[in-house]
C-alpha cells in the first residue's frame, strides 16, 4: 500500500467518487450564492437584476430573523437536553434484564420509524389537541382546563414532538455504549465503596462520553433543519413564535416566491451551521479521539 506507485493508483481510483461528491456539493452552493445576490422573484422572473447585498440586508433587518435564529437554538438545545438526559435514563432502565425485554426495546425504538409529518399530525390531532387530545382528557380528568398547546406554547410543543422522535435514536446509541461497560469495573467500584450515584458519575458517564458526543453531533445536524413538524402543526406561528431559520427560508421561497431572499437566508443558515459545528467540535469533539 505504501509504495509511491500504489498511492498514485489509489488516488486515481478514488478520484471519480471524490470529484462527483465535490461537484454535487459545490454547484448548488455556488448557485445559491449567486442567486443570493440577485433580485429574483418567481412572480416576476423577467425583472431579474443584480441586487448586491440587498437580500442579506433585507433578511438581516427582518424582525423575524433574530427570532428565528433564537428559536433555532432553543429548539436544538431543548431537544438535545431532553433526548440525552432521557436517553441515558431509558437506556439504563432497559439495560437491566427484565421480562419481555425484546418487546420493550422494540417499543422504545419504534417512534424513530414514524416519519416526521405523520408523527407531528398524530401529536397535533390525537395528543395535544385542546378538545379531543389525550393531554386535554388528562387535564379534564384532574379538573383543570385543557391547554391549547400550539397556541400557548408553540415552540415547547414542537420541541416535545421532535424530542419524542429523536429519543429512540439517543437511547439506542447510549444503550450500546452502556452494554460495553465492563461489569468487573462496576464490581470493583462497588467493592471500593462507591454508591450507585457515584458509580454513575465516575464510571458510567465517562464511559458514555463518546456515545453522548456522537448523539449530540448527529442530532444537531438534523435538528438545525427541522421543518416538517413546524409546517404541519403551527405553520411557524403564532406570529413567528415557532419559526426557525429553515422555516423562515421556506416562507421566503415558497410563500413570497423570493428566490434571492431565500438564497441569502440559505447562505446565512450554512454559515450559522458551520459556526455551531466549530463550536461543537471544540466543546465535545475531544471525546472522539
Amino acid at each position, binding site marked *: 500500500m505504501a509504495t509511491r506507485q500504489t498511492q498514485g493508483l489509489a488516488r486515481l481510483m478514488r478520484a471519480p467518487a471524490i470529484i462527483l461528491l465535490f461537484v454535487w456539493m459545490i454547484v448548488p452552493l455556488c448557485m445559491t450564492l449567486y442567486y443570493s445576490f440577485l433580485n429574483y422573484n418567481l412572480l416576476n422572473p423577467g425583472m431579474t437584476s443584480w441586487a448586491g447585498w440587498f437580500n442579506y440586508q433585507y433578511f438581516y433587518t427582518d424582525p423575524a430573523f433574530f427570532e428565528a435564529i433564537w428559536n433555532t437554538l432553543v429548539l436544538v438545545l431543548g431537544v438535545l437536553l431532553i433526548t440525552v438526559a432521557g436517553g441515558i435514563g431509558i437506556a439504563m432502565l432497559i439495560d437491566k434484564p427484565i421480562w419481555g425485554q425484546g418487546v420493550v426495546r422494540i417499543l422504545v425504538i419504534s417512534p424513530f420509524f414514524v416519519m416526521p409529518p405523520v408523527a407531528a399530525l398524530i401529536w397535533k390531532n390525537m395528543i395535544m389537541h385542546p378538545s379531543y387530545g389525550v393531554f386535554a382528557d388528562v387535564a379534564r380528568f384532574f379538573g383543570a382546563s385543557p391547554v391549547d398547546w400550539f397556541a400557548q406554547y408553540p415552540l415547547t410543543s414542537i420541541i416535545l414532538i421532535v424530542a419524542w422522535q429523536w429519543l429512540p435514536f439517543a437511547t439506542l446509541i447510549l444503550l450500546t455504549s452502556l452494554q460495553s461497560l*465492563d461489569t*468487573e*469495573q462496576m*464490581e*470493583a*467500584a*462497588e*467493592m*471500593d*465503596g*462507591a*454508591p450507585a450515584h*457515584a458509580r454513575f458519575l*465516575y*464510571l458510567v458517564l*465517562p*464511559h458514555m*462520553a463518546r456515545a453522548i458526543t456522537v448523539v449530540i453531533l448527529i442530532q444537531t445536524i438534523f435538528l438545525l433543519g427541522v421543518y416538517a413538524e413546524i409546517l404541519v402543526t403551527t405553520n411557524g406561528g403564532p406570529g413567528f413564535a415557532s419559526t426557525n431559520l429553515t422555516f423562515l427560508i421556506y416562507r421566503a421561497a415558497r410563500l413570497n416566491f423570493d428566490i434571492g431572499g431565500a438564497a441569502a437566508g440559505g447562505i446565512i443558515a450554512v454559515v450559522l451551521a458551520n459556526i455551531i459545528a466549530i463550536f461543537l467540535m471544540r466543546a465535545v469533539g475531544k471525546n472522539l479521539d
Partner: protein
Amino acid sequence: MGQITLQGVAKRFGEVEVIPPLDLTIDDGEFVVFVGPSGCGKSTLLRLIAGLEDLSGGRILIDGKDATEASPAKRGLAMVFQSYALYPHMSVRKNIAFPMKMAGVPKAEQERRIEAAAKALNLTNYLDRRPGQLSGGQRQRVAIGRAIVREPAAFLFDEPLSNLDAALRVGMRLEISELHNRLKTTMIYVTHDQVEAMTMADKIVVLQAGRIEQVGSPLELYHTPRNVFVAGFIGSPRMNLFSGAAAAEYSAQTIGVRPEHLRISATEGKWKGRVGVSEHLGSDSFFYVEDTGLAETITVRSTGEVDLHHGDTVWLTPDEGKIHRFDKNGDRI
C-alpha cells in the same frame, strides 16, 4: 484483623447447585489459595465472600461478625480482579485514590497513602499515566495498589496473574508473596494453576465441583493427598495413577506414584517399558515411558544426566515407601 468463617455456605443458580453447603475457616494473616480445575466454583466462592453474589444458604462471618447481608463495601475486603478492572479514564493516581475518596479520607492522608503504595509497588513514575498506557504487569500493580490503600481486613485475588506472560507471572508471584510477608494481612487467592498454589499458599483449599476435596498446607497435600483427585491435581508433573493388577498387588483399587519416586534403569527393575519422549532440563530429566501395560504413559523424573533415548527399553522401580493407595471410592487408605 481478618478472620473469615464460612458456615454452610451454598450457592445455586436456579436449579444448578454450584456450591453445595461447605464450611471453612480462614485465620487472620493466612495466605489461602483456592485451587481447582476451571468451573469448580472457586471464583464463585470468592465472589460470595466479597459480597458480589448472594448466598443461597449459610452464613459468612468476618472477624466473628455476621456479614452475610452486608454490602461489598461494608465488609472491609479488597479485591483484585482478573481483568484488573481499572477505571480507564482516570490516571493511576486517581484510580488508587478512588476507594479513599469514596470513604471520605482527608486529602493529605490520601496523598500519603498513595505515595507509600506507589513506592512499594514501583509505580511512582507512572502515577499520572492512564491505565491504557501501562503494561500488563504495571496494571496489575495498580490494581493491587488500589486494594492496599484501603487497608482492608483481607485481600481477595481472582486469578490475578492469568493475563500475564510466563516470566512476568513468576515475578508477580514473588511480589505478592513478599507483600503478604510485609503486610501480614489475610489473603485469599483463586487460581487454577497448582504451581501458584504450591508456591504461595500457607493453606491450600482444593475444590472440585463446588466441594472442598482437601484443606491443608502445600506439603500436606503433596505428601498425603486425601483422594485420587487431589493426588492427580497437586504436583507437577502429575502423579502416575495405576489401577488393575499393579494396584491389587498393594491391595488397593488405585495406586499413585509421583514421577520423582520412580527409579529408571536400563538393566533391571519392576515394570518394563519403552522410553517415548524425553526432556532434558539439565537439573532434571523427564521421561515419558510407554508400553508398560499399566497406563498410557508413565512420567518419570530423574535428577542429573541419564543417558536414555527414544525407543530404549527400560525398567521402572517405585520407591515402596512413597506409594499412595486409594480404595474404590478414590479415598486414601
